[in-house]
């Protein structure tokens, strides 16, 4: 009985949320854009006209400059004579993979620690919150750079570094909400009925935090995509030959005035993807919590 009632409530929440989300054209547009990028990334091997690592002899002018967009190379070629369009498609794989995995780890760790700190309190809770205070003292990009400089750069390290930097904010949000929830009577009732800490965390607190987790998970992907592009622009992200948008801009920076498309095209890709996740996250926030509507 209890389970079916709970599920019914969730279903109501879902359909209501979807209806409100649906009415927000910007959020829906963001969702469509994300779908297109995911498709481009997954289907990159089929969609890409060329191998992203292949350097074409006819991919550079006689003077050795990259080619502007043309019929054969739709987005032109880069400074090594590689097809920019194919590299862009494969770059979407890198951005989305890091965005989803790194942020997924950060959200999982942050939620777990925030829950524990907010409900269990005691020395463990205090330690977790002082750790978040400490983490907030470091600018995220600089801490990521310092870590990436010490560890050997690569895909796994970039994911680890970003997760290590990004769990803090969500942990603090979940902590604040858990502290509020923990004082409610139904939690006291559950405890009185003999529910253990684990059961209370999992069955009684976590379901109420799902909306916040979803919102911050979505907004966090935007932050992660930006942080990854910065790291890779600084040469400390994923390493060649794996294409990454930030690195594509870094590599063509010295040719920038002659070949501006090599900056603008990957730059637009980063902007559009991060913007899409921000719009969807904002739309979800409004849809999941109608009392906050329009407050920014």
């Amino acid at each position: 009985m209890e389970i079916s009632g709970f599920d019914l409530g969730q279903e109501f929440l879902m359909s209501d949320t979807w209806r409100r989300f649906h009415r927000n054209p910007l959020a829906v547009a963001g969702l469509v854009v994300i779908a297109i990028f995911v498709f481009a990334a997954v289907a990159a091997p089929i969609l890409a006209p060329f191998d992203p690592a292949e350097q074409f002899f006819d991919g550079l002018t006689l003077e050795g400059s990259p080619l502007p967009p043309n019929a054969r190379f739709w987005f032109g070629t880069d400074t090594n004579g590689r097809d920019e369009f194919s590299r862009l498609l494969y770059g979407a794989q890198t951005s989305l993979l890091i965005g989803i995995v790194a942020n997924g780890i950060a959200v999982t760790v942050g939620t777990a620690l925030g829950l524990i700190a907010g409900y269990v309190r005691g020395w463990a809770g205090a330690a977790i919150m002082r750790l978040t205070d400490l983490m907030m003292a470091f600018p995220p990009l600089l801490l990521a750079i310092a870590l990436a400089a010490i560890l050997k750069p690569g895909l796994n390290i970039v994911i680890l570094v970003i997760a290590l930097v990004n769990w803090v904010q969500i942990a603090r949000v979940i902590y604040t909400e858990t502290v509020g929830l923990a004082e409610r009577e139904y939690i006291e009732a559950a405890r009185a009925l003999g529910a253990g800490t684990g059961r209370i965390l999992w069955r009684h607190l976590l379901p109420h935090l799902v909306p916040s987790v979803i919102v911050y998970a979505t907004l966090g992907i935007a932050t992660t995509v930006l942080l990854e592009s910065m790291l890779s622009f600084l040469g400390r992200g994923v390493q060649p030959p794996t294409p990454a948008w930030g690195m594509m801009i870094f590599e063509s920076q010295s040719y920038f005035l002659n070949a501006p498309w090599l900056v603008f095209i990957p730059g637009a890709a980063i902007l559009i993807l991060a913007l899409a996740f921000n719009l969807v996250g904002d739309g979800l926030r409004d849809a999941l919590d109608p009392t906050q509507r329009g407050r920014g």
Partner: protein
Amino acid sequence: MLAYLGKRLAASLLILLGVSIVTFCLTVMIPADPVAMIAGRNSTPDVREQIRHQLGLDKSLPEQYLTYATRLVQGDLGRSYARKSEVGPLIASRLPPTLLLMLAAICAELLIGVPAGIYAASRRGRVGDKVAMTLSFMSVSTPQFVVGLTLLYVFAYLLSWFPLGGYGSFSHLILPALTLGLAGGGWYSRMMRSSMIEVLRNDYIRTARAKGMSEWRVVLKHGLRNAILPIVAMIGLDVGIFMSGVVVVENVFGWPGVGQLMWQAIQSLDIPIIMGVTIVAACFIVLGNLIADLIAPLIDPRIRLR
């Protein structure tokens, strides 16, 4: 007030202690052996042992940390690998251009964020509001190197309104400051909007309107004064946030500050400089937080001290 001040100060010092432990651990984690780097590949074990001793690497980790922390307190950030000079003075000599850039960026973000937020709040729910908020989302969704390179291309290369990077005059300052301040301007416009909407619900605003004041006078005279308080309280935090941005922005515009120093250190993996800049940035953030906490009750007496 004094008790509050003491409490905040103690908390800040504790955080700085934590920062020093973290950076110490990071330094210890470095896989490259500093002894081998200094002594060279062909050094004898004797020489290496001597250098180990000189660097204090033969002591236990807590002892090493103590030496490390003592030197940090004295402002000694170690020696750069590549530049063969002390990191502390190196960073200090690069700070003035960076602080100037940050000051200009704070002006830029306020000049963008405050009017945009007031405008959006006054057109709440209408097209103008939606356009302003979408633009603010775009500004926070664009990596700063893309903003910087785009501004450079359009306003310096195509239009020649500004120099193509460099340092020295007011016109050199505009584009980098705009680049650094744009994202913050986006956040401020959202904060300003929600703060203004909140303030405009108050009774004294209704009274002002009922007196027959024009809407603009109501918003600017009665609304702005209160709505801007939360934003003023946030400015202290910007300096810390900017420490990330200057690495990218100073590189794009050839601005000779801490960010450029950091950029070069990243390219040559000059760990002491990377750590030094990270520590300085952490100090800025802690200081910024402290200032924000201290001025918040001064500018808004409704905020109670905890």
